[in-house]
């Protein structure tokens, strides 16, 4: 069988890649893609802790589903913001959205 550490390391790596995407991408949609990767990494952890702990405690799975709902809400609102900004300012580059900087 696969030891728990493999899953955790995989999810840590996925989280780091997502973090890199969030920090480095210029396009706001791509930043949201990075956030999705990070949420998935968290979910892998939750599900593997469910499987490797006591399977009759459903907390891991329940939290994973809640994370699905959070991810869906985040994507819906985030992309709506991006589209709204695009229609007003005609750009999706996060660096150029600097109206609130001052």
């Amino acid at each position, binding site marked *: 069988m696969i030891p728990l550490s493999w899953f955790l390391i995989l999810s840590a790596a996925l989280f780091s890649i997502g973090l890199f995407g969030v920090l480095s991408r210029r396009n706001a949609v791509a930043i949201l893609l990075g956030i999705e990767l990070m949420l998935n990494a968290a979910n892998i952890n939750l599900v593997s802790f469910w499987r490797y702990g006591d399977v009759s405690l459903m907390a891991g799975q329940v939290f994973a*589903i809640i994370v*699905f709902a959070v991810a*869906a809400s985040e994507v*819906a609102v985030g*992309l*709506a913001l991006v*589209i709204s900004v695009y*229609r007003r300012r005609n750009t999706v580059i996060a660096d150029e959205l600097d109206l609130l900087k001052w």
Partner: protein
Amino acid sequence: MQNEWLYIGLFFVIGLLIPVAALLISWIVSPKKPNPIKQSTYECGMETVGENWVQFKAQYYIFALVFLVFDVETVFLFPWAVSLGSLSLFAVIEGIVFILILIAGLVYAWRKGMLEWV
């Protein structure tokens, strides 16, 4: 449990291989005589004007958005529906409240005229 997914994995692989095989046979047999006219974008014989990236209505996005929210909602409802047979009336009411809260969102979008195709 592992076995079920193994079977579906096999299904996945074979289901990919059969169309690929059909395309391969066709690729071997079919003639290949490309020319620029043939490969141009098909618009009933008209010259293509502009990019293919036409501006789309944001309405498409609204519908996808409402769908996303309801899709996640039904995901919550499936475990509820499965275990409904062994649950009390209270649990049913909880599920109904859950659905009603979401219906309120649909009603909001409807009242605001966001479901109209304008």
